[in-house]
Every structure is written in structure tokens, then in C-alpha cells.
């Protein structure tokens, strides 16, 4: 006790590590959940601490708890923190946790993009490796798009360790971002011949995976793979390639022919079973794809079957299993060669291993013939009895039904036997497949007319023993057969010998415990039975008997009328009334049987399942058109009540006058028949050709059948299918004898010629005459049905998107997105005519803006969702920033410029844009431009604008418009800035901080153009200035001079803000949260309207209006790093006061100062 207490207190004092956690859980077996929830509380505390080691430890423990089934997604943000630790130890823990719990729905995942990019380019290969591994598990479409290029670069990394990982991960990237496949494919292909076997193997792996889904696009790689197959010694690679060929051969038979030889060689030479097995598999695929008949192919088949036989006979169960699996593939195209191994396969049915038995079952399906069906099924029935697990038994059951019913009951020679098999199957306990058996019973009884008499007798027996089937609730599945039994007995009641008994069985109170849909069938079919009994009694003049049966119905039907099932209730009450009416007539001694039986006249023919769908739509029929114009509402309201009352009265009067029936009914029936005759969709009861068989002596004169029928019928519960097997053997024997006799006779007549033929003759399938001469009615199809294949492809298949033609040359538009400076338009030749260029340069600009706009829209939506999470994160970040960045110094550098005549143009565009942003509506606004002057000299003028980058919390894009003011040609412009600690220009990889960035165009006289430069920054709470220089060469008739222009790039705080809409309730919540710092300013001497004032704030400072009431408005914006900025703007007589709230007070005060400056200019 004391020890425990001591331990407990120490536990509380110090953090547990993973081992302690595991130990703790093991020591708290009895209250594990409680202990763990306590641990989770501790972990939550640990995660709040600043020490990254503590956090990492906590995340490590969470990963363990995740394995035990605890959701840890709430710690997603902490996991990201640990991922971004600088130490490999922690980073690895973070990535492991992320790979276990991140997925596409994890919202903070979008914050990881930069961290992952940084890790991918880390000088430490294990940082890169860990990032790649993690990414492979949680890559999202966004991450894939943003990082595709980085990963592609890694495919050419110097370390094979990184290369192979990068290659594998590209597959995941393709899945999420299919556009990357074409640009990356050449490099992937290159990796097939990488000097490192691991990388090669990875590339083979990826291409095989791709090709498996869309093989046709990879056919062109076949020669390369063929080379690899003959040269590689790595079994793993060989297996993959051989498997790939298996997928390619169906598309290109010539490939198959080429493959046979090397594969056969491999089969003979290899000692690795895995390789041998895959070779056999691919040879089979090749053989399937080739047209058979060539002699050397049969040799290959023989080789395969032989090898497989060796596998199946092996004592290793794994090989046995795989041998059977491959055998089933051969079976489809070369059943004969498999059938010769029937002994082996039947032997496998007795295997103790269920997987092997199931495989053997699959094979049996293809091996049955008329001759051996009964024998095989008998064997299966024995297994059914012995089987322990319900799954295996159910599997057996479906297999038996599959085997028997395959290709339209092709192999069944004796349907009585089949019916008895089905009846025997109903004795299975706890099967789920009752409906399958039921469907078979119905199908056979409807389609095989000759069997109906027998089927009905068996079904009557089932109904009689219904209590056995339905009693046990566990056997619920099997009671479906009662559905079939009831229907068959009702529909074919004329074959029923003791209809009375069956009817009584159907009226038992126990029936009401059956499922509703079965009861409904019972109710409907007991009337059919009743009708036929009635007819029988009337014919034989047993009036009393007829009345008794009616009385029975009237007594028993009410139990169904009370049913909770609507269908049963409705049918029962309807029928009850009908029978009551019949009773009245009976009392009057009116013969009614013929009338009643007429209710069910006509034959039901089987209709193919898809028949309705296949009915072609007649020409000129528009199914969507109104048949009658829909009546207007007012009309119907007026009419309805009247008609209801009217109708009802009519009905009553009809009820009271049943006299009309006799003649009237006859007339109506006639009319209905006429109508049906003209109705193409009504299935007519025309005497079908099958009926004739019933009368032919062929059926009746077989004595065995008749003897057999009476015996098993009376003994329910005894398996009788076996008897058929015996009888069948005898019958066949007899037939054979008879045939032999005939043949002998023939032989005597015609000696010599046929002699040899006869001696070779073995009993073939055709010789087995069926016991019943049976005709199976095919299912009906409408006339001129449309042939169509139904298998629609799954539109959600993720691999479909990767169905991309890889042989087409790569277009520019397909290049992977790379992080770089954007330029709007590149002028290629220095002497191109100015006006033309101007037009060109304008268009794309607009487009780009639209595009940006869209992106922004998208971003906004996302942001709204992510706000809460980010809020939290930003708080932490900004606090960190403060600590780190107070020592910051600001250095400055220079940039270059050119001129633009189009400034006015720009400002117009900008204005429209700001209005579109939806911040304001009424009143036209004065033109505004966000482009500010950067620097100017006689040659060039530069204006610039800064915009935050939504996708990246530490980047801004500076767009600079260069305008050539001179008459000279300006070229070789290069812009350079002096980076500060906080703010840096993003330069291409490999260039130093002193290198400038070339402006990607040249400027003819009088022309302007825009280029964009990306800057990364850490803190955004303060405005910053960067010094820069633009150097350029001026070229005119006198020659060329080198010129420079210095400038100062001013990053105002407003440029870090992104216009973000905000709903007033969210805004109110934000203000209530109390996390925001407050500050305010007041500006006097404002003369412009409030509307314009707001527009200015919106436009220059990137705010949006949340609400506006008179001369008071609330506004909102967000920084790229997620700071919320809220403003309350009030306009007085000549002044404006602005109250601001923001997560960061420095940012807020800087913003307000900037705003003050803007407003004071008004």
C-alpha cells in the first residue's frame, strides 16, 4: 500500500515516458480505461508546456494510445509542433504520430506544407527520409500539388536511400494529384535503370501499381521491362515484372508469344517457389489471351498443370492453396486439362484447412458434368452436414446451388433429385441463404413444368412442417423457403393431392409469427388453394364440404386481419370480405367455384430480370412531357370535396346491389380479356409448347420415378436425394445395357467399318439421357429488346483519374507548380512592335487577376473553417516570434525598374476589383490604385503593390510594374534587395543572398510590364523597409550604358492583411473571447463621405465591412499569419474615430498608425 502511494506521488511529480505508461497500463488491468483517461489528462498538461522534449514525449505516448483505439486527433496541432522540432529524435516522433492519425479530413494538415518542404530539403538525409515516410501516409490533394515538384527533385537525390523513398511516394502523389503523372513520368521511367537495385525495385513497384489499373497506357514500356526481366536477378523485382506482364498480355497478344519462352525457362530453372508460382500464373494469363489450338501451347498448359499438381501435392499448405488458386484460372479456358485432376481436387475437399477447401470448391464449379454432378453434390452434402462454422456451410450451400443452376441447369438430369436436394438444404441451421434456396425452388417449379407435381408435393410437406423451420428464431434466414413453398402450393394447387391438409397447415396460428412478407404470400395463396378446393368439392357435389371449407377460412382469417403488417392486413381483410360474400352465395346454393377460380386464371410466365429495362422507348415518346397539363391549384380545391362525397354514395349503392354480378361480371371479364389480348405487356396464358410433354408417354412410362415418388413423400425429415443417386446409377446402367444391345444388333448388321470406333467409345455426356424429359422455359424478354451491357464502371474509382496517356509529349501547361517568382509576360525579341506587345501583356494580367480572385475565394472558405484551430496556433506562434525576433535588424537592398504608361489603366481595374470584393455597394467610388511609387528616374518608373500569400503564412508577393519612360530600349534588368533578418527575397535555389533576380522581360520604349517577386518574412507585426537596386542596360542609337536606380521597398502592415469576410455572429464571438488587445485613434478634419472612407479602408488596408449602421461600421481582416483584426469605425461631424482589436498589440498600433496616415490625407 505504502509503496503504491509513494509510486503514485512520484508519478504525479515526474512525467511518465512511454515505458512508464505501458507499465502503468499493465499494472491497472482491472481499471484500464480509468487509468488511461488519467494519463490522457496528464498528457494534455504536458502538451501545454513549452519544452519540446516534454511535448515529444507526450506525443509518443499518444501514438501508443492510438494503437489501443483512442482517438488522438485532438492533439493534431501538438503533433505538428513536434514535427517541426529541429532535433531528429523529436521530428521522428512527430511524423510517426502524424502518419498514424492524420488524414484528408485533418484540418491542420494544411499548416504542414512548409514544414514538410523544409524537411524534404534538409541536408540531413534522415530528416528527409522521415518526412517522406510520414507524407506517404497522410498526403492530401493539396499537399500533393504543393510538394509534387519537391518530391520529384528528390527522385534524383544523390543518396539512393532518399531516391527510393521519393520514387515510392510519387505513386501516392499521383493518386492524389493525377496532373503530376505526366510531368513526372519521364524521370520515373529513368529510375527503372537506376544503378541502385533498391531504387530500381521501387520504380518497378510504382509502375506496376500504375499499370495494373490502366495497363494500356504502359504497353510502350514492355520492351524495357522485357530487358529487365532477362537481366535482373532480384526475385522481388522479377515477381513484380512478371505480374505486370500478366496484366499487359491481354492487351497485346504478340507480347504473350514472346514471353512464353523466357517464362518457361524460368519455370524450369528457378528454385524460388514464389517466382515459379508467378511465372506459372503469367503463363496462364498468356495462354488465356492467345487463341488456342497451336500445338506448343498445349505443351505449355501441360507444363503449368503439372507444376501446379506438384504444388497441390506438396505438404506445404501454402503451396497447396496457391496451386488450387492458379488451377482455377486455367479452368476457365482449359477445363479439360483440369478435369483430369478431379481426384486431387476432391481430395482437397477433405483438407482440414478451410481456405483450401474453399479453393477446391471453386474448382469444382467448373468440373461438373452431367455425369458426375450427382456424385459431386452428394459429396458436398456430406460436407454440409459435417461443417462446423456457419460461414463455411453457407459457402457450401451457395456453391451447391451455383453448381447445379449453372448455365441454365445444364448439368441436371433429374429435377426431382434437385428439388429433394433443395428440401434437404432447408434443414440447415442458421443459414443466411434461405432466400437463395427459395429463389431456386420458385425458378425450378415455374420453369420446369414436368416437375410441378413433385415440387408441389414437396412444398406441401414443407408447409406441413413449417413449425420445424420457423420455430427457432436462429433459423430466421431459412423461413424464406416458406415463401416459395406457399406460393408454389397456391399457384399450382391443381397438382396438390391433399389440398385440405395444406390449407389447414397454412391457417395455423403459428403462421402469424412469420415475417410480414411471407404472411402476405400465405394469405394470397391460401385463397388460391381455397378456390381449387371449392371447385373440386362443387364438382363432386359435396356442398357441405364446400361450406365447411368456407367456414374454416372465415374462422381463421381474422388472425391475419389483426396483423401488424399492413400488407397482410389489407390482403386478409379484403379476402375475408370476399369469402363472407361467397358464403352468402353458398347459402343461397349458387355455384360459385368457377367464379372464384377465375380470379386466378392464367399462367404466370417467368420474365427475365432485366426485361423491363430492355423495352425500347418507342419513337416520338417523350417520357418527361406532361400527359395532361397539371391543373391549377384553385381548380382542384373547388372540385375535390364534391367528387369525394359523390363517389362514396355511388359505392354504397353498388354494394347493396350484388344482383348485377352474374351477367355483368361475365361481360366485364370478356372486356378485360379483350383488353389483355391487346396489351403487349400482359403475359398471356397461351398454351406453351412445354405443356405437351406432360401428356407424352415419355414421362409416365418411366417406372422408377413413380415408385420413388410415393416413398419419400410420407417420411419427412429423411434425406432422399441419396436414393436418386442410386436410382440414377441403375437407370444409367439399364440405358447402357439397352444401348449396348442395340449396338450389338447394329454391329451384327454392319460389321467391320464401325468396329474400331465402337471399341474406343467411352461413355460420353451425350449418352446420358435425362430421367425426365424436361424442357426448361427460358425467361421472357420483350420483343426487340435492346442489347446492352449493364456493367457501368464505378465513377468513384480513384484509379480512373490516373488513366492518362503517357506517350504524348509534355505540354507547358502541365509542368508541376514550382515556387518561383511569377512574371506576367515575357517579351522575347527586343524589336517587336510596341502596340502588339501591349495588348498581349494586358490580357494575361487580367486573367491572372481573375484567377487570383478565385483562389482567394477558395481560401476564404477554407479559412473560415480553419479559423478556430489557427487562432490557437497563431497565438503561440506570435508569442514565440516576440521572443526570438526582438534583436532583428533591418538591412536593405536595391531593386530595378522600368516604366509604365498604364498607371491609369491599372487604377481603373483595381477599383472595379475592390467593389467586386463585395465590401460596399451603393455610390460610385473614386478611382483608387493600390500601386504606389517605388522609384523613378528619367528612364524608368517603378510602382509596386504587396499582397499576402494565402497558402503560405510567411510569404508576400510584391508586384512591380516597370514602365519605360525613355526612348531607349531597356534590357538586362536585375532587381536586388538587401535582405533583413526578418524579410528575405526568395531566390532560386543555389544563388547567394547577394545575387539579384533578373526581370524576365525587356522593355521597348514607352512600354510597361509587371513582374512579381516573392518575399519570405518571419514576423509581420511591424512595417519594414528594404533597400534595393534595379540595375539595367539602356540601349539606343548611341550605344548602351549601364544604369542603376535605388529604391526603398516599404512593407506596410496593411500589406500583410488579407481581405477576409466575416459574419457578424462570428465577429461578435471574436470580440467576446477577450483574447484581443485594444487600441484606438481619432482623426480630425475628415471631409469625405463615410462611404468613401470605408472604401478607402477596405481597399488600402484590406478590410471588409462586417456590418454598417448609419455612420458606424464594424470591419474585419486577417493577417497572413492568422491574426484577427477587428475595427469599429465611427464618423462624427468632422472626425473619425477608430477602435481596433487584435491578437497582437504591436500589429494593431502599427496598423492604426498607417490608417491614420491614409485618413489624414483625405
Amino acid at each position: 500500500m505504502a509503496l503504491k502511494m509513494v509510486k503514485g506521488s512520484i508519478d504525479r511529480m515526474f512525467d511518465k515516458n512511454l515505458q512508464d505508461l505501458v507499465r502503468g497500463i499493465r499494472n491497472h488491468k482491472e481499471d484500464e480505461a480509468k487509468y488511461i483517461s488519467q494519463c490522457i489528462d496528464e498528457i494534455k498538461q504536458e502538451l501545454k508546456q513549452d519544452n519540446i522534449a516534454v511535448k515529444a514525449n507526450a506525443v509518443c505516448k499518444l501514438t501508443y494510445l492510438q494503437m489501443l483505439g483512442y482517438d488522438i486527433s485532438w492533439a493534431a496541432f501538438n503533433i505538428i509542433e513536434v514535427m517541426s522540432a529541429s532535433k531528429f529524435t523529436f521530428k521522428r516522433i512527430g511524423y510517426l504520430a502524424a502518419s498514424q492519425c492524420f488524414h484528408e479530413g485533418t484540418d491542420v494538415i494544411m499548416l504542414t506544407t512548409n514544414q514538410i518542404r523544409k524537411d524534404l530539403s534538409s541536408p540531413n538525409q534522415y530528416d528527409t527520409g522521415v518526412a517522406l515516410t510520414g507524407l506517404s501516409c497522410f498526403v492530401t490533394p493539396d499537399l500533393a500539388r504543393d510538394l509534387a515538384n519537391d518530391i520529384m527533385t528528390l527522385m534524383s537525390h544523390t543518396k539512393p536511400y532518399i531516391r527510393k523513398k521519393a520514387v515510392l511516394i510519387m505513386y501516392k502523389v499521383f493518386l492524389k494529384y493525377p496532373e503530376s503523372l505526366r510531368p513526372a513520368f519521364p524521370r520515373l521511367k529513368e529510375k527503372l535503370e537506376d544503378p541502385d537495385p533498391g531504387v530500381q525495385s521501387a520504380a518497378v513497384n510504382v509502375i506496376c501499381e500504375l499499370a495494373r489499373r490502366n495497363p494500356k497506357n504502359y504497353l510502350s514500356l514492355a520492351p524495357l521491362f522485357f530487358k529487365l526481366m532477362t537481366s535482373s536477378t532480384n526475385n522481388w523485382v522479377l515477381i513484380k515484372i512478371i505480374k505486370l506482364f500478366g496484366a499487359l498480355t491481354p492487351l497485346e497478344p504478340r507480347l504473350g508469344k514472346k514471353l512464353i519462352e523466357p517464362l518457361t525457362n524460368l519455370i524450369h530453372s528457378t528454385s524460388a517457389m514464389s517466382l515459379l508460382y508467378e511465372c506459372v500464373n503469367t503463363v496462364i494469363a498468356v495462354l488465356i489471351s492467345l487463341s488456342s489450338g497451336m500445338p506448343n501451347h498445349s505443351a505449355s498448359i501441360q507444363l503449368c498443370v503439372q507444376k501446379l499438381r506438384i504444388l497441390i501435392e506438396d505438404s506445404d499448405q501454402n503451396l497447396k492453396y496457391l496451386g488450387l488458386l492458379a488451377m482455377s484460372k486455367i479452368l476457365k479456358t482449359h477445363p479439360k486439362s483440369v478435369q483430369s485432376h478431379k481426384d486431387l481436387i476432391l481430395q482437397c475437399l477433405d483438407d482440414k484447412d478451410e481456405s483450401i477447401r474453399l479453393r477446391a470448391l471453386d474448382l469444382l464449379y467448373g468440373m461438373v458434368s452431367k455425369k458426375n454432378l450427382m456424385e459431386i453434390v452428394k459429396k458436398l452434402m456430406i460436407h454440409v452436414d459435417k461443417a462446423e462454422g456457419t460461414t463455411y456451410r453457407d459457402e457450401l450451400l451457395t456453391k451447391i446451388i451455383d453448381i447445379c443452376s449453372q448455365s441454365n441447369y445444364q448439368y441436371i438430369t433429374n429435377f426431382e433429385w434437385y428439388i429433394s436436394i433443395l428440401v434437404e438444404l432447408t434443414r440447415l441451421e442458421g443459414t443466411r441463404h434461405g432466400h437463395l434456396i427459395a429463389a431456386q425452388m420458385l425458378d425450378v417449379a415455374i420453369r420446369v413444368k414436368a416437375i410441378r407435381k413433385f415440387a408441389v408435393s414437396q412444398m406441401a410437406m414443407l408447409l406441413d412442417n413449417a413449425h420445424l423451420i420457423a420455430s427457432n428464431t436462429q433459423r430466421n434466414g431459412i423461413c424464406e423457403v416458406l415463401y416459395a413453398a406457399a406460393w408454389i402450393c397456391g399457384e399450382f394447387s391443381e397438382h396438390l393431392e391433399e389440398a385440405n391438409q395444406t390449407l389447414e397447415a397454412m391457417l395455423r396460428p403459428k403462421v402469424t409469427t412469420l415475417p410480414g412478407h411471407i404472411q402476405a404470400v400465405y394469405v394470397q395463396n391460401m385463397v388460391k388453394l381455397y378456390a381449387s378446393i371449392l371447385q373440386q368439392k362443387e364438382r363432386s357435389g359435396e356442398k357441405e364440404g364446400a361450406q365447411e371449407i368456407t367456414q374454416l377460412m372465415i374462422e381463421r382469417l381474422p388472425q391475419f386481419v389483426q396483423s401488424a403488417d399492413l400488407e397482410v392486413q389489407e390482403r386478409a381483410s379484403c379476402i375475408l370480405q370476399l369469402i363472407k360474400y361467397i358464403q352468402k352465395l353458398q347459402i343461397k346454393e349458387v355455384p360459385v367455384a368457377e367464379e372464384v377460380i377465375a380470379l386466378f386464371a392464367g399462367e404466370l410466365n417467368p420474365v427475365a430480370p432485366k426485361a423491363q429495362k430492355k423495352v425500347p422507348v418507342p419513337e416520338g415518346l417523350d417520357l418527361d412531357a406532361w400527359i395532361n397539363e397539371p391543373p391549377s391549384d384553385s381548380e382542384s380545391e373547388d372540385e375535390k370535396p364534391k367528387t369525394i362525397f359523390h363517389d362514396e354514395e355511388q359505392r354504397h349503392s353498388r354494394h347493396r346491389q350484388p344482383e348485377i354480378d352474374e351477367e355483368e361480371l361475365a361481360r366485364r371479364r370478356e372486356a378485360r380479356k379483350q383488353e389483355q389480348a391487346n396489351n403487349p405487356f400482359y403475359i398471356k396464358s397461351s398454351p406453351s409448347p412445354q405443356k405437351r410433354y406432360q401428356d407424352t408417354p415419355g414421362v409416365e412410362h418411366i417406372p422408377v420415378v413413380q415408385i420413388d415418388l410415393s416413398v419419400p413423400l410420407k417420411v419427412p425429415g429423411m434425406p432422399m436425394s441419396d436414393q436418386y443417386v442410386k436410382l440414377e446409377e441403375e437407370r444409367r446402367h439399364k440405358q447402357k445395357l439397352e444401348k449396348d444391345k442395340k449396338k450389338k444388333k447394329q454391329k451384327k448388321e454392319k460389321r467391320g467399318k464401325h468396329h474400331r470406333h465402337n471399341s474406343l467409345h467411352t461413355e460420353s455426356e451425350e449418352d446420358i439421357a435425362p430421367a425426365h424429359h424436361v424442357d426448361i422455359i427460358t425467361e421472357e424478354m420483350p420483343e426487340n429488346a435492346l442489347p446492352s451491357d449493364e456493367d457501368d464502371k464505378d465513377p468513384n474509382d480513384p484509379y480512373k483519374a490516373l488513366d492518362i496517356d503517357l506517350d504524348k509529349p509534355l505540354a507547358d501547361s502541365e509542368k508541376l507548380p514550382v515556387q518561383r517568382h511569377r512574371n506576367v509576360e515575357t517579351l522575347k525579341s527586343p524589336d517587336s512592335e510596341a502596340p502588339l506587345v501591349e495588348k498581349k501583356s494586358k490580357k494575361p494580367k487580367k486573367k491572372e487577376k481573375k484567377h487570383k480572385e478565385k483562389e482567394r475565394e477558395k481560401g476564404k472558405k477554407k479559412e473560415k473553417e480553419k479559423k478556430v484551430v489557427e487562432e490557437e496556433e497563431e497565438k503561440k506562434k506570435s508569442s514565440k516570434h516576440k521572443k526570438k525576433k526582438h534583436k532583428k535588424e533591418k538591412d536593405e537592398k536595391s531593386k530595378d525598374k522600368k516604366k509604365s504608361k498604364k498607371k491609369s489603366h491599372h487604377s481603373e481595374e483595381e477599383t472595379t476589383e475592390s467593389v467586386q470584393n463585395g465590401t460596399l455597394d451603393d455610390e460610385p467610388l473614386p478611382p483608387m490604385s493600390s500601386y504606389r511609387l517605388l522609384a523613378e528616374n528619367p528612364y524608368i518608373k517603378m510602382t509596386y503593390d504587396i499582397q499576402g500569400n494565402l497558402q503560405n503564412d510567411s510569404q508576400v508577393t510584391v508586384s512591380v510594374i516597370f514602365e519605360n519612360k525613355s526612348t531607349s530600349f531597356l534590357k538586362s534588368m536585375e532587381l536586388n534587395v538587401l535582405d533583413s533578418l526578418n524579410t528575405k527575397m526568395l531566390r532560386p535555389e543555389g544563388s547567394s543572398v547577394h545575387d539579384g533576380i533578373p526581370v524576365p522581360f525587356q522593355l521597348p520604349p514607352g512600354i510597361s510590364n509587371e513582374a512579381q517577386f516573392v518575399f519570405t518574412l518571419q514576423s509581420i507585426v511591424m512595417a519594414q523597409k528594404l533597400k534595393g537596386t534595379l540595375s539595367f542596360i539602356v540601349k539606343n542609337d548611341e550605344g548602351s550604358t549601364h544604369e542603376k536606380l535605388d529604391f526603398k521597398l516599404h512593407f506596410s502592415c496593411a500589406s500583410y492583411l488579407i481581405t477576409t469576410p466575416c459574419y457578424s455572429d462570428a465577429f461578435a464571438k471574436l470580440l467576446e473571447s477577450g483574447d484581443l488587445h485594444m487600441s484606438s485613434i481619432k482623426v480630425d478634419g475628415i471631409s469625405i463621405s463615410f462611404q468613401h472612407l470605408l472604401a478607402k479602408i477596405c481597399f488600402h488596408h484590406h478590410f471588409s465591412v462586417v456590418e454598417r449602421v448609419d455612420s458606424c461600421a464594424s470591419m474585419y481582416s486577417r493577417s497572413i499569419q492568422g491574426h484577427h483584426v477587428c475595427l469599429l469605425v465611427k464618423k462624427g461631424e468632422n472626425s473619425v474615430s477608430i477602435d481596433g482589436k487584435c491578437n497582437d498589440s504591436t500589429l494593431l498600433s502599427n496598423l492604426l498608425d498607417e490608417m491614420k496616415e491614409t485618413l489624414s490625407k483625405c
Partner: protein
Amino acid sequence: MINAILVFNNHGKPRLVRFYQHLAEEVQQQIIRETFHLVLKRDDHICNFLECGSLFGGSDYKLIYRHYATLYFVFCVDSSESELGILDLIQVFVETLDKCFENVCELDLIFHMDKVHHILQEVVIGGMVLETNMNEIVAQVEAQSKLEKAEGGLSAAPSRAVSAVKNINLPEIPRNINIGDINIKVPNLSQFM
């Protein structure tokens, strides 16, 4: 593609769970339970392949497993993987564990789940086989452990001292728990590479 890698003991307690597609935790546990029940029924002398129906969401999937002493190693793979190849891969994985932990036993897996994951990540990533050569795998794992040691490891000096204090006089030290024969016996490796 490998869809999931599960390691659990003879009582169905998970020791390593690695799904390569996202599934909610409850679903994961459900799958582990069902897989365990499927595998448990089978004795050691029947085949190591198992059709798992729609357990993992697709009919294409197959379970390939090996049973070592107290642990089951189960791989769920689709039809693009060679069955025998995966069996060998499991063997490679277990032998690698054996090397890295020096005579691996269930307790190693229990207390060092993170390390097991790190080893696995050198064998399979994102459901695709990364490396099948054991020496290469071991070399990479050791290089990373070295890097970790150089950084001072997760449990740096002070907390280790605490651990030592905690263990004083505490009777329940797991190594002493009687678990019986927990050593995983590695049978002869079938020729693969």
C-alpha cells in the same frame, strides 16, 4: 499494395497497428478483433493465407500471416502482391526485429512500439515495399539510432534518473513477470533473396 500490417499476441492485444488507409480508431479496433478471431481459429499447420471478405472494404484483399510463439504478424494485401513474397517479407521483418532488439520477445514490442514502427518504416512505406535486404534495413535503423543518441535521445539524462528512482523498490518490474516462453523462435528462413 499492402493495406495494413497488424501485430497482436495470442490474446488479441495489439502490439503494432499500421493501416495504410485512413480508418477511424473504432473501425481499426474492430478490424483487429475480427482479424484476430479469424486467425485464432486456425492451427499452425494450415496455410497462411486467408480470404477476409469485405473486412477491409474490398474483395481483392487477402490476409497473409505468420505466427511466432506469442505473436501473430498479419499483413493485409491486395492482388498485386505475391503471396509467397509477402510471407518472406514477414520473415525478413521479424529477423530484422530480432537483430535490432537482440533476441526479440513480445516485451520488446510492448515497450518499444515506437522503435518497431521505425524499423517497419524502413521495410514498408505507404503500403509499398521499400527494402527487402535485411542488412540494408538494419544499417539504416542503426544509423538513425546513432543520430538519436548523438542528440541525447528522447529521455535525456534527468528524466532517466527519475526513472531509476521510480524503479527502486517497486515490485512490478515487467521483466520479472512470468510470461513463459516469450522468445520468438525464428525458423529457418526460406530462400527468397
